[in-house]
């Protein structure tokens, strides 16, 4: 599935936030949504490309897609 086909339930715009801000913002949002919901994280911190997948795996959620961009990255996380 391509990123454009994934409809996020919520979007977390953490652009401008330094590590670990984007991950913490994502965790806080995943905490609030229901299982099956997809959270889109917008982050311009490269560390999100490593710490988000690590946390998603640890928490048993699913990383549906990652779109690495020049300005920012888009990570789609589904709460399982």
């Amino acid at each position, binding site marked *: 599935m391509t990123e454009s086909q994934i409809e996020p339930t919520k979007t977390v715009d953490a652009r401008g936030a330094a590590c670990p801000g984007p991950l913490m913002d994502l965790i806080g949002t995943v905490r609030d949504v229901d299982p099956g919901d997809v959270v889109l994280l917008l982050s311009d911190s490269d560390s999100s490309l490593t710490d988000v997948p690590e946390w998603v795996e*640890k928490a048993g959620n699913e990383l549906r897609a990652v779109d690495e961009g020049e300005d920012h990255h888009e990570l789609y996380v589904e709460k399982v």
Partner: protein
Amino acid sequence: MTEEIVIIGGGTGGSVLANDLAERLDEEIDSGDVQVTLINDGPDHVYKPVWLYIPFGLREPEDGRRPLRELVDNRIEIRQDRVTEIDTDAQQLATAERVSPTHYDHLVVATGSTLAPDEVPGLAAGGHDYYSEDGALALRDELLEFTEGHLVLSVIGSPHMCPAAPLEFVFMADDWFRKRGLREDIEITYTYPIDRVHGNPHIAEWAKPLLDEREINTETFFNGEEVDPDARTLRSMEGTEIDYDLLVSIPPHRGVELIEEAGLGDRGWVEVDKHTLEAEHADNVYALGDAAATGVPKAGSVAHYQAATIGQRLASKVRGQVPTAAYDGKTICFIETGMDAASFVEFDYQNPPSPVTPSEKIHWSKLAYNESYWLTARGLI
């Protein structure tokens, strides 16, 4: 016509700024060209770092309270009132005690943090904290009688006030139990939401070997999701469950509701330019300290330095000059590493922290600063 500067909140940021403005706008205030009003929902200024010492029987809540009127320049109007609404278009505030709205030309939001333990089921009933006066006193009752079992310190909320305080608490507890010959009967576990023991990687790298050396268990990627007070268990979003005998948590934090209602930012944190501290979603509004979403720690030193930036910018605006002062992210923090040793860090947006070797001298420096803090609140140091 008098130019109205209104500050909401009489904590470190609000008090230091009020005194800064009284000095900086000395002539304008005396001539009646400028009026500075500080609105606070109680009569006292509260110095929260004192709370860390209350559970260990070393301080009392009143050690961290002084009447605002004793600390703030007499030319600043102090109103004991609660702001209930901010209308950033009309530039006015609704308050609990007055029927007519309060106009402002410049508004500074310094409303701080509040605790939201109810966001985690069971936490309010099953956990203790030292991030409030009541919490610290209730924890003291438990801690002073705690002689065996599993003490769990869980950082659940982030961002939270004083990012060093969770590490300080477990370092102090470890040392305190050792000195009293109890440590062999007490297991200590420290949990943190991400994959290291502190949000700042440099502090995490420094702290992890110390935690290991002190035989303090660590659980990372642990985001507390539910507490069962009867079974005495804490379960994380990641599926880990920990049994506890005494749970000390850093609860979720929020700013005050009126910030979100005014469209200034989510969860009560005002979205600001991290250098000018001007609100992103309203004109003539600033935020500082915990209330400002700058990404730097929610710490008193931050509020202190940010107050100087806003003071300079406001003075420039009042005088029709271009404001040039900018906050550089400066943060300083003492970190207790036991009952008689501490480290110290200083950093900003460009320069990361590098904790110094813990020493008794730094510990006493921290205690000395805590005693002299009232001079900071007065705007003298």
